[in-house]
């Protein structure tokens, strides 16, 4: 009798915009602090990468509370980019993260293109693996009305200027609050971006009907969590058809099944955001779940699944 050779463990490693990841599961900016908050609960070295809380040039106090409200299968937040500022980040937060063997992608945001450039230059000499340009924070409006990521020209301008200022892999995080996200992603690619993070939160609001007041002090906030997942998957699918650069898919991922949807739709990597609040072990469970799925379905390499959606005959 011929014994079946033992199946080789599936390959989960990927190259993401020039960054080597041991698996495609990252943690999303703003939901994982500076890593230290979760280091007691999970082994950070198992993560594909960590995207840190968005950093600005100067420290930011953030918005008045209430900042978070729970909604159906989601949360609305208006934190307001509270952060320690780039200098304190480098001096106080980065050394801790550097003790771990996990790729670091630093999320940055500014109110002007110059600020993005200055942040990118400041981080040039630091030991980090990549930058994520947060062009889609609902709390930063470059002309008091729009986010950068809502204006294709502004997006192109910021990305191309930062591109000239750094050799680090450059990932751009886009807003879903647009009519054609694929077009904006294309702008990023043309401007020299190495990857696209899809998606940031949807602008939403909730009202206390007894008092007639908004539940958030800032009235509106960003919606995240399982409530937005189907829209996020659709956006990854659309962007995947229009750009060559890799996509990091996120929006309501809690289980391995959620992550696999994004990967099949076209995401090369995925990120857990709100899921970290629900279950700090979610990223680890997603990694293990993806591996199990691959073993069960005899998939040797995760890369073969990216964008592998089988469209029904006659569908558009």
């Amino acid at each position, binding site marked *: 009798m011929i014994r079946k050779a033992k199946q080789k463990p599936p390959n989960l490693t990927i190259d993401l915009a020039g960054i080597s990841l041991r698996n495609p599961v990252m943690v999303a900016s703003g*939901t994982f602090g500076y890593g230290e908050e979760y280091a007691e609960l999970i082994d950070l070295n198992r993560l594909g990468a960590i995207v840190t809380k968005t950093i600005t040039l100067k420290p930011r106090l953030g918005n008045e509370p209430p900042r978070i409200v729970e909604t159906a299968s989601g949360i609305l937040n208006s934190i307001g980019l509270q952060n320690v500022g780039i200098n304190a980040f480098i001096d106080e937060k980065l050394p801790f993260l550097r003790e771990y063997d996990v790729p670091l992608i630093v999320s940055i945001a500014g109110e002007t293109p110059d600020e993005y450039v200055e942040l990118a230059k400041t981080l040039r000499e630091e030991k980090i693996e990549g930058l994520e340009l947060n062009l889609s924070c609902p709390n930063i409006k470059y002309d008091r009305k729009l986010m950068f990521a809502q204006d294709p020209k502004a997006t192109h301008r910021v990305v191309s200027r930062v591109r000239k200022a750094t050799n680090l892999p450059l990932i751009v995080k886009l807003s879903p609050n647009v009519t054609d996200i694929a077009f904006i992603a294309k702008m990023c690619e043309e401007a020299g971006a190495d990857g696209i993070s899809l998606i940031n939160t949807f602008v939403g609001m909730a009202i206390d009907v007894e008092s007639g007041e908004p539940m958030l002090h800032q009235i509106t906030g960003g919606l995240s969590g399982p409530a937005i997942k189907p829209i996020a998957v659709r956006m990854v699918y659309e962007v995947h058809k229009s750009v060559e650069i890799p996509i990091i898919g996120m929006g309501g991922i809690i289980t391995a099944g959620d992550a696999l949807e994004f990967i099949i739709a076209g995401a090369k990597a995925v990120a857990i955001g709100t899921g970290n609040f629900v279950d700090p072990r979610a990223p680890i469970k997603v990694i293990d779940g993806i591996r199990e799925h691959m073993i069960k379905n005899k998939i040797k390499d995760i890369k073969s699944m990216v964008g592998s959606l089988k469209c029904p005959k006659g569908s558009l």
Partner: protein
Amino acid sequence: MTLLSQGVQNFLESFRKEGLHETETVDEVGNSRGAGMLQIDAKILINEEIAPERYKMVLSAPQIARQARPGQFIHVKVSDSYTPLLRRPFSVHRVEGQKIELLYKVVGKGTEILSRKKRGEYLDILGPLGKGYWLPAATSRISDIILVAGGTGVASLLFLAESIAVPNSELSVLVLIGAKNREELLCEGDFRRLGCRVQVATENGTRGYKGLVSDLLEKCLPLSGDGSKRLVFACGPPEMLKRIGEVSRKHRFPCQVSLEERLACGVGACLGCVVKAKGSTYTYKRVCKDGPVFSAGELVWE
């Protein structure tokens, strides 16, 4: 009495130490950092209604029981569905051996689901979290402690009372418990059994002092001895804590308040649960990580 857990022993040790300053104690007493927070599946041993809409839950959670300090909390995943999505925080009410107790009131969907959990089921919990009660600079020995509880705010204060009243019999502990009516008064007997003096206040006057427990506190002050040896710990609804903060400022005694807030992550990452604290202008502190216990004087009450 019961065997004291490691967490409580550490708390007492720091409590006896002199020369600790408020700001320095933040990392030494009750902060979960270093002590190690855990995520475990805890078996439900008891979940019973002890008063209308008030439940006591006993969980088997050896490691958390060992480390938990008065004022700390656990973050409970009440549902496997996404309704509700977020965990719910509960103060540690008591620790006994390998067990921790919670005391909660049904206030919404999350606590309603929790109240229907049966003995033998498991709960995914995170803890111990947050910074608990601590002892401020002991220039003169504190001898006169007042605990002020509003509603289910008694939960964390019983744990505190068990930590300080049992072994330190020379310490005078006065407990003021407030509720809307007599049916909602909780834990009076528990505090008395520990040797604490207890006074109660009900808003409708069906037992004890008629009115707010914060007014009862002010009324009790002249009788409770030397103010310089006094220390007040309070837990309850925001309005009550604000009022007690004012009383503490007026009468110049140190006061710690344990805040109740809706939390998302519970571990200090999301910055969703902040309160305004004094700074050069002001700053924001995280209820889940920098608190839930704060010095009343460090907060900006609005």
